């Protein structure tokens, strides 16, 4: 084997090792965030790190280690699938958390949903009193 090929091989190994370690550290960061942050919203911020960036780094490490071009579309499909599902579930959890008041209101910098919720509640109350008459 010529030395160039083995040098490239070592470089690819080093890059994928760095990707794997950083991807694992993303999971650790999410766990530390889950343990230390005060309420649901800030915990959600920490929880998305391994789901998107961590998975991307680890799938890139898999692609680099296998050293074939045809796995990249498969890995991309797996990553895009995760990218489509994670925002939906985060939206549902955040919505339920807002509605059930699992948040520290003094930690929010802006609350753009409050006016909408108040308006909807008022409209519902008016409809109720109309129905009562």
């Amino acid at each position, binding site marked *: 084997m010529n030395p160039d090929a083995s040098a490239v091989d070592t470089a690819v190994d080093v890059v994928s090792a760095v990707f794997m370690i950083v*991807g694992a550290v993303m999971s*650790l960061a999410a766990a530390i965030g889950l*343990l230390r942050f005060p309420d649901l919203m800030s915990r959600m911020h920490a929880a998305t790190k*391994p*789901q998107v960036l961590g998975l991307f780094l680890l799938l890139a490490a898999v692609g680099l280690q296998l050293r074939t071009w045809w796995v990249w579309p498969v890995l991309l499909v797996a990553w895009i699938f995760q990218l489509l599902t994670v925002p939906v579930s985060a939206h549902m959890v955040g919505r*339920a958390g807002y509605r*059930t008041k699992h948040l520290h209101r003094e930690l929010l910098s802006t609350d753009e949903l409050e006016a909408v919720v108040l308006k909807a509640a008022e409209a519902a109350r008016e409809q109720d009193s109309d129905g009562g008459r």
Partner: protein
Amino acid sequence: MELVLTVTAVVLSLAAAGAIVRIARGPSLLDRVLAADVLLAILGAALCIDMAVNRHLNNLMLLVAVSVIGFIGSVTVARFVADRREQLNES
């Protein structure tokens, strides 16, 4: 590669322990759902590292299935939490 495997195994074990502590302690149901989601992400990370170190693709379908289960689980639980609390407020 052995060193990388050891380091990532230790890091992922610590992360999983943190997520499990949050599942056990979590003040609300939604905190537990979120921590279970993170635990599934950590499981997916472990599957990815196994594939990368041992150079196979056997776990790829399992990885996609794990992410589907996490999605369906958290969406379902979030819906039921919202429904129950609204009914409590009305009564």
